[in-house]
């Protein structure tokens, strides 16, 4: 049995607003609130804890500098921050020599992402739990492709290789999975 912290978009957005005016307490709360998912995404993509901490730190710095331009109508603070993190992490692994990723590590990433619970047992935000729930309701082959591409930062070719499928099939699974994720979110809003 685990606890899941509720997502509080209003409070998150207030935190970012306070960050924009250099509120020290807001900065502390902001980093502590989001360091788990930010580091989680960075390490999922880089597979290197040291590099992941560098990426995560840079993501927080970028977010801090851009906090005045954050627009809550375009997405939650969590996804805004994770988008920054993902771009940085992908840049970081492209700047290094490609290192092979153990298939077992990717399988662990898939199962952890679809379960909606943190591997260290600390629980997670409802926003993450809800997203994992939507992912888990996708056809399994689409969910796997989306996790590998989005959270694992794998290219379409790497997804195809890991899944043992043609590249075109991998791309179709990713695309259909992303579109279904969006539709599921819309259906819940209606």
């Amino acid at each position, binding site marked *: 049995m685990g606890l899941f912290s509720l997502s509080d978009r209003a409070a998150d957005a207030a935190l970012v607003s306070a960050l924009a005016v250099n509120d*020290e307490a807001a900065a502390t709360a902001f980093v502590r609130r989001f*360091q788990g998912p930010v580091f989680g995404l960075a390490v999922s993509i880089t597979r290197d804890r040291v590099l992941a901490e560098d990426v*995560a730190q840079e993501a927080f710095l970028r977010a801090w500098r851009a906090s005045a331009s954050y627009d809550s109508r375009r997405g939650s603070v969590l996804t805004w921050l994770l988008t920054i993190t993902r771009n940085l992490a992908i840049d970081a692994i492209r700047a290094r020599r490609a290192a092979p990723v153990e298939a077992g590590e990717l399988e662990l990433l898939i199962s952890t992402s679809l379960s909606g619970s943190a591997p260290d047992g600390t629980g997670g935000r409802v926003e993450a739990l809800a997203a994992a729930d939507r992912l888990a309701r996708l056809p399994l082959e689409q969910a796997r492709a989306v996790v590998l591409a989005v959270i694992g930062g794998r290219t*379409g070719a790497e997804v195809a290789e890991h899944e043992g499928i043609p590249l075109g099939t991998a791309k179709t699974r990713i*695309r259909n999975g992303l579109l279904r994720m*969006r539709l599921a979110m819309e259906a819940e809003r209606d």
Partner: protein
Amino acid sequence: MTEWHPDPDQLVALALTETDAAQQERLVAHLAGCPACRDDYAQLSDGLQQALAATPAFAPSAGFSGRVLTAMGSTAAVTPIRSRRTTVLMVACLLVGLLAGIGSVLGINAWLDRSSSVVTAQEPVAARLLTSGGDAIGSVGIARRSGRTFVLLNVTAGRSGARYDCILVGSDGSRLNGGTWTLSDEYGRGTASGAWLVPIAGAPPVAVELVTPTGTVWARGTF
């Protein structure tokens, strides 16, 4: 001459940042002038954001937050921007949502079902969390989604950094530990808060207690 439009895979590649600089520039320029492709891309981008939110959380090494904060160099004085009135209104909305049994706790609204089956048939579905001194420090309620039952906890006036075990008390007197949590600082207010879900199996509890590491019952909510 046929007008060029990117194929769906190219839009996926753009969303996943798999394109090189030249491809990206061409695609972005096209999207700027093509509402149909822009809409297709927006759907993929929205889906990608939803998937990102499922990222599993991992704890970084000790001292990580300190290093980030040092790098930020944020030394400005604490300046709470949320007025007490706003805070009170938010808390009031939260309580109204719980007591109305619709699980209307801000972001959870979109996730929990909104049909009449959201809440278990048991009444009442929400209760105040009271300390032994009778102070109300939050609320507790029960919600259901996809056949799963959750206890909803909302603490609005806790102590910063305090850790609590969440004990679910059954009708037979059984005591089940639902997990341990630490309250988050409410910056600028000197108190801490938190809102949590505890997935439960079997019959819903008749009461919920927040117990300190020393075994003291800090607060209790009885249905």
